[in-house]
């Protein structure tokens, strides 16, 4: 019969239409504007309306989500801030659109580079959010941020982030990327332990 195919198809649309309301009724009040509801709407069993009502609702971000990078500093026991960045320049080299600018200085007395950048700029409009800088930094000093709401009216005034704007405490990093943070900390502690052990061994040898 001509039109049977259309009718069968319309049944699918109808079923979807009905499920939407059934689902809304079944989960009355729990389906929208709360994290569990959002989680349900992106699960394998989700039926009905899929839409997340941004900005009232926001998708939770997975740990690996990347937007623009930020720099990490450690807060020292005396309260001072220590940049993790050593201005080695690797991130500036791997950056595909070349939007990282690092100003290094040398100590006038020794003539050797100071292991902290004087300035650090990222042009966030050029940044293609690739994540290379974070991936290849040997000191875990630069990581990808989760904050994607960076729009402003004036690119010229606000969109070249300097070191101050880029820097965040290690705590912040631990907050948005807990798994990565604890993995890296474990590796770091292990390294430090090894170093301490080696030093102790050397000291013991010297004492002999």
């Amino acid at each position, binding site marked *: 019969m001509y039109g049977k195919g259309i009718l069968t198809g319309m049944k699918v649309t109808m079923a*979807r239409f009905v499920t939407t309301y059934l689902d809304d009724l079944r989960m009355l009040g729990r389906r929208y504007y709360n994290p569990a509801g959002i989680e349900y709407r992106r699960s394998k069993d989700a039926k009905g309306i899929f839409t997340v009502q941004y900005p009232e609702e926001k998708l939770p971000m997975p740990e690996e*989500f990347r937007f623009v990078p930020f720099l990490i500093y450690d807060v020292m026991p005396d309260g001072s801030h220590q940049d993790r960045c050593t201005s080695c320049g690797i991130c*500036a*080299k791997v*950056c595909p659109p070349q939007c990282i*600018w690092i*100003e290094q200085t040398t100590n006038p007395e020794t003539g050797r580079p100071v292991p902290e950048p004087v300035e650090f700029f990222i*042009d966030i409009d050029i940044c293609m959010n690739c994540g*290379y800088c974070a991936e290849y930094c040997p000191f875990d000093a630069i990581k*990808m941020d989760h904050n994607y709401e960076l729009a402003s009216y004036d690119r010229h005034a606000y969109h070249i982030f300097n070191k101050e704007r880029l820097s965040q405490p290690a705590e912040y990093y631990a907050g948005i990327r807990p798994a990565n943070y604890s993995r890296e900390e474990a590796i770091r502690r292990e390294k430090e332990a090894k170093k301490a052990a080696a030093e102790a061994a050397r000291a013991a040898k010297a004492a002999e």
Partner: protein
Amino acid sequence: MTEMTAERKLSALEERFPGKVSPDARPGYEGFTVAPKDLLEVATALRDELGYDYLSSVTAVDYPEENVFEVVYHFYKSTGGRALVLSAQTPRNKASLPSLTPLYPAADFQEREAWDLMGVKFEGHPDLRRILMWEGFDGFPLRKDWKEAYYEEEHKPFAARWPEGAVRRSEDLNAFSGNVAYSKEFMAQPDKYEEEAEPLLYAKLNEEAEKMGRNFETDFVTVNMGPQHPSTHGVFRMAVMLDGETIVALKPVMGYLHRNHEKIGERNTYLHNMPFTDRLDYLSSMSNNWGYALAVEKLMGNRVSVPERAEYIRVIMAELTRISNHLWAIGFLLNDLGAFFTPSLYAIEERELILDIFEATTGSRMMCNYFRFGGVARDFPEDSWNKLKDLVNERLPRRIDELDVYLTNNEIVGSRTTGVGVLTPEEAIAYGMAGPVLRASGVPYDVRRADPYGIYESFDFDVAVRYHGDCYDRYIIRMDELRQSLKILQQAVKRIPAGSVLDKNPYNVRVPAGESYGRVEGPKGELGFYIVSDGSANPHRYHVRAPSFINLTALEKMCVGQKVADVVVILGSIDIVLGEVDR
């Protein structure tokens, strides 16, 4: 096996053409060289006697030191097997070669591209106009001595970034000052293209239309569809000549999204290019990553090896990409048919769930930048692994069946697509069609089987094929491929071994000198990356064989004789992404 075929190939070709064809002697090069005067003869024999009927890729390489351009051809047999690479050189100041378009229509757009961007003339080409740039543009932007707007330095990384780091905005470089290579005449009148390009296009259109002859003493009408048109899925234009409602000639006009991707790629280091490939066909970044990784890994040879788990993850990601791409393609084909957004939103729902997995694993929903030379960037997190299993075993099969019930037997879909835009198998091969378009025309050619890469050989799946070559078959074949991809995915999630996903990940990748062509079966067809390395940190030549672009070669063929409303459907059934067409 490779050695044997190589030897056999060598003897067959060389026996047939003693003294005319010789193996490329440069280290790392895999093809044969031929003198320009013998090119047509050799190509004819390749097609008619040796079975190399599929011309996949044509591109030019600039060798300023030797003062030559080299045009490189990749031929395949449509029955499968490895490439036969042929190259011909022509002096830089008088670059000209015989055109292969009369023999292989697949060369049409690719030769136009080589003319447009490299300035190699192809004698005997029926329509050698610029294709990505505009007629009247000055210079050839892929030549080694070209400087683009905002030019800064020959190669990345740029010295200005570190250790001095005196920041400035890109806009502060003047697009039209000393950092570009336009001639004085062009600079005096940079918008003269308006006068040159359009008459040439319309003249060509008229010429084709006259060839068709007229039914009545009526005027033909020229209609421009696009560049701003909802059916073109981006900025793409078709200049159409109509006799009443019937199409007598059609010329695609493209390049609105051109960004000289290949030149950017040659300024980049090898590693830099990976995230740029995401932006080609931005709906299927994973496949793009794979094609590029494959080409570079081939050059690196035994310096790099991919762990088994990474191979599985590559397959999983590529097949998920295929599913999300085909869902998108089917959904938007229905949009083109006038079923405004209900089917496409049903399809996009499932795609969203796939993108959730991409996001949790790679960090980004679409610009995944996930593949590395020798593996993938990181492993699946636990929760997205579980999600993936649910998706491929439960939800996607259910939803694809639903989509099938919803659309496949719909009479309107049937009557709008059946017998529309037909391409015969012979034509599909001659025009270099790839992917679903080729297979819907009855040619069971799938790179995953014809020239396997990764670990596809170990999976049980069928190459989908349909035989009518019309829009309906191009729709239904995507349904078939969705199911085949699911089949692969179900096997992969079951069998995937534990282990590392990446051995070494150095930031300064070094690649030995030579040439390589890596190709994958992307969702839109054969996606190839041709790379020439001179042993330095940046590729000497980086070329993308873009299936979206080459599949448009047959657009006119498919459209002539159809009604104007069918153009929209035909274009939708090819499934193009302008990021890849225009590069």
